[in-house]
């Protein structure tokens, strides 16, 4: 063990839920077979949904554009295999409603679009590199799916001096980034080189939680003669949240209402990094990703390389199926992921994991009165007062909630997790944030 594990950097607040990563941490990434149908939603990212540019009956190749970006904060969508477009229609979406999607019936050949060409990052200008990233439809792969090219286009007056790679993977259960760091370090380093060139940064760090010593060791060895620091971090949720990661590594605090670029930092997930490497060096658009299918409700947890648009049911079938009726299906991690109505929805570019729980694992506690114990306040990494804001939110006192900095909530869920009275705190704060934004839009 070459990494010193004492006095690790971290942020104030947070907590450490049982991480349950042991079920899938040692499972190498497997390729998920081809499903009978791929449902590729046109809304897979933060920002404006893409607009379909193919029609039913058309034949497409893997990597072909099927949806064009609408606006700057938007990305194009590509076919994740070759085959026939059978429909362009609203289909059930992980958001809980039917949203427009391109449905492809695979022809089994999985043939890439001819003419997809990689390039040498050294000979491309930063602007060309950024355009390639945008055209490949790259979004933040940690789960938030924010278009990568937007983060890589900081305004002139916000110089960026530090690039942070997020390999923290602080959400319990998930091991997709962990496996990626072990299995594709060269792609991560390739992506870093591209990001360094675009941003012109002085300092580059890879933040990894100390519960992944093998990944820390591997990347430390791989970066020994490169200007990249591997920073082991204390095992604490939400260490991988953007603002908390910046604070832990650089000591800089993103101001209230600000963005990482306000303190001269850009953060990208390691998964995004490999996608950028594939997009620039090999010319491949973002049509697949790594996802962890795990939880006590699935027979054999696995890390799978999945095509965007594969149904969750199909993913579960590849892992030996369900153990009994699932009581809870979560896309993403257990703390910030989205509960799903059924397995009849497609995986998207943001599907970092799929968790299945049976009824024994989903205790429902009755909601009690606030005990004023302050555990949520101690746990809150944004250092706001969750119980106060939630109380205002439930009385529809939007202005008061805003005055208590509801908008600084990162929705990590530490407050709800820590509450002994089982109060839906983060849920109420999210409601308040929605009301505040609606009010601001009204003017």
């Amino acid at each position, binding site marked *: 063990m070459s990494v010193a594990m004492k006095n690790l950097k971290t942020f104030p607040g947070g907590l450490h839920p049982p991480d349950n990563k042991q079920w899938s941490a040692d499972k190498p990434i497997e390729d998920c077979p081809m499903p009978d149908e791929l449902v590729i939603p046109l809304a897979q990212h933060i920002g404006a949904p893409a607009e379909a540019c193919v029609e039913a009956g058309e034949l497409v190749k893997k990597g072909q554009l099927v949806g064009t970006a609408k606006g700057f904060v938007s990305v194009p969508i590509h076919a994740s295999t070759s085959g026939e477009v059978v429909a362009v229609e609203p289909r059930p979406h992980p*958001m*809980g*409603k039917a949203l427009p999607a391109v449905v492809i019936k695979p022809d089994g050949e999985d043939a890439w679009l001819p003419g997809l060409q990689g390039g040498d990052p050294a000979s491309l200008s930063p602007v060309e590199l950024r355009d390639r990233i945008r055209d490949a439809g790259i979004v933040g792969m940690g789960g938030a799916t924010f278009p990568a090219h937007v983060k890589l286009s900081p305004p002139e007056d916000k110089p960026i001096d530090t690039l942070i790679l997020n390999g923290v993977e602080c959400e319990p259960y998930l091991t997709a980034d962990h496996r990626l760091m072990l299995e594709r370090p060269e792609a991560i380093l390739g992506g870093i080189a591209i990001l360094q060139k675009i941003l012109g940064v002085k300092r580059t760090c890879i933040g990894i939680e100390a519960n992944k010593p093998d990944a820390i060791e591997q990347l430390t060895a791989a970066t020994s003669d490169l200007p990249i620091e591997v920073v082991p971090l204390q095992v604490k949720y939400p260490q991988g949240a953007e603002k908390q990661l910046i604070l832990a590594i650089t000591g800089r605090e993103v101001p209230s209402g600000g963005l990482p670029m306000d303190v001269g930092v850009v953060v990208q997930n390691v998964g995004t990094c490999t996608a950028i490497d594939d997009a620039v060096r090999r010319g491949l658009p973002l049509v697949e990703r790594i996802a962890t299918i795990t939880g006590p409700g699935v027979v054999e947890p696995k890390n799978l390389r999945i095509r965007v648009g594969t149904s969750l049911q199909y993913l579960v079938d590849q892992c030996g199926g369900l153990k009994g009726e699932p009581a809870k299906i979560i896309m993403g991690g257990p703390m910030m992921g989205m*509960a799903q*109505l059924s397995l009849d929805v497609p995986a998207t570019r943001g599907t970092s994991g799929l968790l299945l729980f049976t009824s024994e694992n989903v205790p*429902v506690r009755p*909601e009690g009165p606030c005990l004023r114990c302050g555990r949520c306040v101690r746990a809150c990494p944004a250092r706001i007062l969750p119980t106060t804001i939630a109380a205002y939110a*439930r009385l529809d006192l939007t202005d008061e909630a805003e005055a208590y900095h509801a908008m600084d909530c990162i929705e990590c869920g530490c407050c709800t997790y820590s509450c002994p009275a089982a109060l*839906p705190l983060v*849920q*109420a704060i999210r*409601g308040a944030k*929605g009301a505040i934004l609606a009010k601001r839009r009204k003017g």
Partner: protein
Amino acid sequence: MLAAILSLGGIGLAAAVALGFAAKKFAVEVDPREQAILEVLPNANCGACGFPGCSGYAKMVATSDKIAAACPPGGAVVMEKIANIMGLAPVEAEPMVAVVLCQGDDGKARQKYHYLGVHDCVAAQKVADGPKTCPSGCLGLGTCARVCPFDAIEMTPDGLAVISRARCTGCGKCVSSCPRSVIGMKPLDATVHVLCNSHDKGGLVRKYCDIGCIGCMICKKTAPTAYEIENFLASVVYENHGDAEVAIEKCPTKCIRNFMDGYPEGSSFSAPTCMREAG
């Protein structure tokens, strides 16, 4: 002792004189009629008139010398008092009552998921458009009951909002609080209503609710003048609702109710207090 009495008494006297002078000098002139109107208003500050609270309404009437809007909770009685104070003709407004156009409680309507968040309909509606499979049915989490200034809405044990016709003043506050627009304002003299809000086709409605309107037209065939069907949903023609009652028996899903025969199942409100008390 004496010094203390004198000094404290002196301070008190000086303050009293100063305050008395200030009260005369800086007195705000209030139209006595405004005060009189405020006294006869229900003072629920419900906002149904469109003005900020009862004082806003009283100020509007007193300063503009006309009664630009009715006070629905006050009704004809309050309107007459205000008209007397102002020496103006009263504004006629048809008395209205809020009706929850849904009877699909947890026993009768299907849920698509088990909701565990904030106990509030607006919050629940944001999670995949609400836990109820029916996209237009009552979510039963009581947001309307909490905003009602007259305590006229109760939630049945099976999660259905029911509005007391005796207590409801027709202020309409619940209507704007409901994220699914399940509550409608209806004329008070009509007691027969189609209690369904779903515009889905019959087959779909049958899948998610036992007591929804399937748009079968039987009510319209039975009482052609009293019902109209739009987008697979029947509604009473309130201008001509005399015959509405005869269709109740014929409705296959029993989604038409005469409130004179009682409130929806599970409600603790009793039928005899079906109408608003006079006065």
